[in-house]
């Protein structure tokens, strides 16, 4: 047995949609079997009647609101009618509009929602990550690519595309970056400052930036590259872009470059690029022998914490005399084996390729000790040369002949040699070498095209090892050499630094500069993948949009393959 209760609210108008909503609310109440809520127009009354919801003696017309409830018992019916106002009110309170919580499903829609976003964070599963990153680049956005399991081919092609467009691809497998004070991925909260970081190691970057903060200094930008960036195949594309950007960034006064062991050729290129920044650069290649503690504007750290300390407190009184750089090769002609070795160790980071008859690594071995190639360091005291001959510290003949041989090679731009004084050595090595140097110089000048300056001719650099008590008269030896135009140093370390700075080793291909304004704008980003990265951006006060990402065609591989074909068709 059911009961029907009704209420008439005279002169109360509600839109039919509101009333249908109310009706649904009433139907959801306990004990309610049916309900009808409508303006009491003749048509509506007919409808109610057809559904046995029109009380016989009801008196209501078109301007009146009629509420009818059919329920199991009086109590339920009265309770339901009693809740009409609450139901009407409840709808209103849930109507407070917040128009900015739409979660786009595609990158292109996200870009429309937040056009000022310059960054896209990608942390989707690896096999989809390259596709998302490529789309981001197509849309002109920098990419923070947290995802791993991205193929090397994809990484190279993404980074080449990015380099052409002046965009950064940080990653894949990039854990950490700090752009304009906002941490991307995993990052510590550090104060803004004047130290820029280029990091091929996420936790390395975290350790260094945190330590810099703890030492009282701060970070301008920390740009991640991903662990594979410094492998030969990738060629440190991102690291080069990052160095270039930080070099141009006025806020950045000091740069820190951190990487797990880089490929030697890549290290060489990066060191050259670091030199080229003209800013103090602290380099820590973890597990890679530092060529020196300091070369010009570069300092080499031996730990993450020391890298931070050098960046904050390093003695950066720099006087880098940049003469026109030498573009030809170095030939080092040493009488002292260890001096040759230390020089090779110092120079291998910045001169590449470099060869020696006493190599550090096997690929540096000079096949024929009598014929130099590219950059070469010769140990003339090696057994090979010693057969039936006095040691070159006593007998200069071999070195003089080799000097002439090297000078005859027009590709040689610098000859580096040592002069070791002391008991047992030749009584006046400078006196024998200087006339030869003068002779070589004159001969070279005659044969060279007159337009070429002397600096571009042939430069002689000497390391003089000795004391002022030595029998050869140290100062007189040095003076003789200097008068002949030889650049003289007292240690191999100084010579290495000088030589490093005199050569151009960067063979960087064309690079479209990253737009610095994009780094300096308040960070706005689009997050595709891990939602925690989005939450973290918001909590740092950055503007962000999270893409509700799903695999293309929801993982339907047949459809995804078709779509991919249609996309590639577009590019043709």
């Amino acid at each position, binding site marked *: 047995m059911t009961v029907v209760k009704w209420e008439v609210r005279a002169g109360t108008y509600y*839109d039919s*949609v509101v009333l*249908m909503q109310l009706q*649904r609310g009433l139907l959801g109440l306990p004990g309610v079997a049916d309900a009808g809520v409508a303006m009491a127009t003749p048509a509506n009354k007919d*409808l109610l009647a057809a*559904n046995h919801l029109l009380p016989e003696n009801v008196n209501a017309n078109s301007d009146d609101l009629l509420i009818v409830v059919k329920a199991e018992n009086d109590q339920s019916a009265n309770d339901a009618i009693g809740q009409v106002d609450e139901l009407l009110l409840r709808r209103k309170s849930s109507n407070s509009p917040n128009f900015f919580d739409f979660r786009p499903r595609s990158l292109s829609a996200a870009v429309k929602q937040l056009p000022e976003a310059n960054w896209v964070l990608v942390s989707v599963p690896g096999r989809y990550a390259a596709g998302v990153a490529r789309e981001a680049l197509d849309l002109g956005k920098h990419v923070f690519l947290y995802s791993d399991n991205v193929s090397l081919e994809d990484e190279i092609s993404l980074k080449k595309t990015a380099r052409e467009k002046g965009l950064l691809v940080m990653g894949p497998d990039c854990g950490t970056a700090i752009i304009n004070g906002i941490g991307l991925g995993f990052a510590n909260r550090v104060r803004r400052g004047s130290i820029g970081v280029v990091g091929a190691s996420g936790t390395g970057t975290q350790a260094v930036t945190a330590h810099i903060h703890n030492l009282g200094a701060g970070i301008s930008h920390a740009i991640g590259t991903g662990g594979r960036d410094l492998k030969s195949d990738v060629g440190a594309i991102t690291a080069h872009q990052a160095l270039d950007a930080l070099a141009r960034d006025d806020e950045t006064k000091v740069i820190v470059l951190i990487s797990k062991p880089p490929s030697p050729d890549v290290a060489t290129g990066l060191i050259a690029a670091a030199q080229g920044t003209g800013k103090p650069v602290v380099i820590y290649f973890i597990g890679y022998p530092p060529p020196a503690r300091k070369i010009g504007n570069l300092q080499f750290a031996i730990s993450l914490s020391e890298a931070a300390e050098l960046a904050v407190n390093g003695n950066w009184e720099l006087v880098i005399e940049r003469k026109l750089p030498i573009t030809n090769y170095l030939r080092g002609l040493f009488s002292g084996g260890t001096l040759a070795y230390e020089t090779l160790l110092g120079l291998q980071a910045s001169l590449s390729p470099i060869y020696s008859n006493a190599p550090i690594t096997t690929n540096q071995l000079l096949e024929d000790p009598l014929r130099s190639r590219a950059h070469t360091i010769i140990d003339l005291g090696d057994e090979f040369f010693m057969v039936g001959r006095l040691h070159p510290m006593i007998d200069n003949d071999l070195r003089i002949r080799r000097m002439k041989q090297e000078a005859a090679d027009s590709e040689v731009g610098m000859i580096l040699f040592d002069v070791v004084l002391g008991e047992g050595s030749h009584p006046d090595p400078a006196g024998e070498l200087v006339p030869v140097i003068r002779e070589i110089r004159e001969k070279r000048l005659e044969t060279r095209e007159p337009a070429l300056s002397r600096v571009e001719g042939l430069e002689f650099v000497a390391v003089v090892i000795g004391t002022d008590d030595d029998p050869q008269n140290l100062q007189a030896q040095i003076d003789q050499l200097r008068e002949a135009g030889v650049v003289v140093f007292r240690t191999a370390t100084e010579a290495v630094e000088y030589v490093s700075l005199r050569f151009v080793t960067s063979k960087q291909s064309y690079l479209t500069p990253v737009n610095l304004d994009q780094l300096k704008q308040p960070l706005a980003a689009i997050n595709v993948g891990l939602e925690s990265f989005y939450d973290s951006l918001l909590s740092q006060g950055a503007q962000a949009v999270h893409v509700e990402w*799903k695999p293309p065609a929801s993982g339907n591989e047949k459809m*995804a393959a*078709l779509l991919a074909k249609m996309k590639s*068709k577009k590019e043709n």
Partner: protein
Amino acid sequence: MDIDNANTTAVNRLMEARPILKGVATARDVIPGMKDNLFLHAGPPIEWARMSGPLRGAIIGAMLFEGIAKSEAEAASMAERGEVEFDSCHHHGAVGPMAGVTSASMKVYVVENAEHGNKSFSNLNEGYGKVLRYGAYSEDVLKRLRWMNDVLGVALADALAASNGIDMRALIAEALHMGDEGHNRNKAGSLLFLKLLAPLIAKVVKDDAVESEVLQFIGDNALSVLNPVMAACKAMTDAAHGVEGSTIVTTMARNGTDFGIRVSGLGEKQWFTAPAEIPVGLFFSGFSQADANPDIGDSAITETAGIGGFAMATAPAIVTFVGGTPKDAMNATLEMYEITFAESKFFTMPSLDFRGTPTGIDIRKVVELGITPRINTGIAHKNAGVGQVGAGLVRPPLKIFEDALVAFAEKYQL
């Protein structure tokens, strides 16, 4: 072939189409291929045996209206025996809401695309309650149809003949700024329609009583303008059809049994169909989801043209049909941008800072994102003649977009 270029061409044709309501005429005189025993219906082609209740009811009603059959039983058995022909409205440049049944003697709106020259047609709107488009065919339904043909239709025909036509694109654009989305809500558009027609009707109708009756009928019906709006959308989407290499959807339509789409770069009569789904929404007193017929009607042509469910952001008043809030209305439109190729140059939404409505459904995006178009719709009772039981939201099955993608790849050898 460049799909993006083709799609640009297609959506530009869609947007730049200029549908002008030129007149009202008898179907057999204006609709290409129309003949006395042919009954056009909404959605993709369907045979009698598979038709749902409301569509069968509307066919029976139209046969009675035409005088081809004398009774319901006779009409049904004639239909069963194949003595009358059926075809999709869309094969004849026509559209109709719900059952969309259009027969040779019916008066239809004639819309002409001033930009590209194609024509489109739609029947006249009967109003609410028991109506043919929901499958009702009782004597009062037929009586109203006759009045519409003999009185309303003649008045509209004369009125429009006395004008330069009504610019439907301008009317829709204005209505969108007045809270309509052009599909489920046409209150503002219908009043604009009445405003434009009233002086013309006053000029051409000599009898005051008839004039009053006609104006009252148009004014009382908040759906008066729906049919010309649909015809306008049809003129726009037809202009976008047949662009080689385009993945833009040019038709979405339902016949109460199947949901069908057509794609610009594929065939003229190449439909991709799957069983229509049952809309979700709010129901009139005494009705529930169990009474609902599967999705029916050509009115999804509005969404195909970039209004209706795609323009929900501008019509927050009706978002409650699916228990939503104005925020949901925003999100509905934002979601449709995900699967469309362009934003309308002419239909804008104040609430989104006058951004153009999402225009040109791209089957690639639908399949890639798994987002199907959102369609606002009336809900028909599953039994013939009961009428509308509610209104709500429906989406086409994803499968038909996947099928279309496969067919596209085959045709273009991708």
